[in-house]
């Protein structure tokens, strides 16, 4: 059992940072405990992403979960004061999905297996 509650907070912080960086004025977030997994969804009305940017974000989000790092370095999630977007979410989650289009905002859903 990991310190998943702290990790959830960090993941939401980091997804919020990403949304703010994209100029969002409205951000919706939800956390759902679904059996042995937690589903976190953050939707914003920011600038959205073009294909190139999406590939870059997917590369970060689709990284394998890194159990050896998430408890230790996970506390840095969402802490970047320079407003950098996603850096740690990928290594703290098992699955991710991005729905986005230029000018139409972004919806990111991530899952953590408990």
């Amino acid at each position, binding site marked *: 059992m990991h310190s998943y509650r702290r990790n959830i907070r960090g993941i939401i912080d980091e997804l919020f940072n990403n949304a703010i960086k994209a100029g969002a004025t409205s951000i919706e977030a939800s956390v759902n405990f679904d059996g042995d997994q937690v589903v976190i969804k953050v939707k914003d009305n920011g600038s959205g992403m073009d294909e190139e940017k999406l590939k870059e974000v997917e590369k970060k989000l689709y990284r394998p979960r890194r*159990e*050896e790092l998430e*408890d*230790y*370095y996970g506390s840095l999630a969402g802490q970047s*004061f320079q407003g950098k977007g996603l*850096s740690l979410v990928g290594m703290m989650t098992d699955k991710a999905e991005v729905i986005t289009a230029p000018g139409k905002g972004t919806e990111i859903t991530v899952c953590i297996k408990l």
Partner: protein
Amino acid sequence: MTEKTRYIIFSLYMLALLIIGLLWPGEDLASIWGGFQEIMKTPGVLITDFFSIGGVGATLINSGLVGLIGLGLIYFSKTHFSGPTIAAIFTMAGFGLFGKTPINIWPIILGVGLAAVLKKDNFRSVIVVALFGTALGPLVSQVAFGLEWGYIPAVFLGIGTGLILPAMASHVLHNHQGFNLYNVGFTCGIVGIYLTAMLTLAGEDLLLSSVWYSQEQWELGLVFFLYFGLMAVLGFSGWKDTKKLWKLPGTLVTDFVTEEGMPPTLFNMGLVGLIGMSYILLVGGEFNGPTLGGVFTMVGFGAFGKHVKNIWPLMAGVYLGAVLSSYSPSAPGPILAALFGTTLAPIAGNFGPVIGILAGLVHLSVVMISGPFHAGMNLYNNGFAGGLVGTVFVGVSRWLNQRPHKKKEEK
């Protein structure tokens, strides 16, 4: 490059230390064994050059064994073998030249492992802290052999200390926001202050050590130029992607292996090693346990945050600081500050070379006085000083970033 290939390459690198140690000219098996026993019994606090204590052969064997223990723990715990773990292996092997032994690292590792058990977690979740936490190995040796309390009390003290490291290491990250790569060094420095205070309260007189080897320079230089140079050759196929890697700021957590793959990482590690070796040569320093340990650590973090572009400003800053002050750049403190001071490479990576040079300058001033705080029992003294410097730099930068820009509306 598969994970299996990575294991083979880095196992061979650690095994090479054993072989070079066994074949070191002018030393036979009996003298190596005698030297090895001496190393096991030495307190190992900063700065204790094992080359002087047990000879070059025994020291290299000790270094290889310490590295292989780390590698074995990663393998058997089925941990992903990548940037952070590569950094940990080379850091362990590097400090196996001046402070860590197979005897003094175990209690700390056990303590960290026990912390995971108490949290009903697995060892894998704390392995990075366990490997880097062996920085406090000299605590065990100092208490057992230096203060002569015996090995059993020292083991218990080591386990107790290891127990609190995971919580502390994660907590102190917030201070410097990942700008100090040797975060466990910062952690161990803080823990070391308390341990020093308690041991002093118990009536012990804790002194720093100053054992510095300055023989067989030509041989050591040649061997380790080749050792690190071969790394660049092995990774040469990835040199084009190394340019992408050099654009990364290097702040924690930047795993170069995940970002760009193994060949460019290996190429970068080799180049970083050659820069470290060249610096020692250029400032007229000596190739010995502590300086080579510094290069090993730089090389390890060449997979986890350090690269050619973000380390030079720190090294230049430390050199400048030494030249402007009364220190000689080749004296033990300043030369180690230049090598290990690259712990602050992310500052240069994020804020540019000028701020990086300034950070190097400040780092030198702090590291020159921080050793006595923990009585040299925290081997990562530069990590401790780097944490203090990083905290100030990040605090000020954060404040500057948050200054209100609404003066016109206020009028």
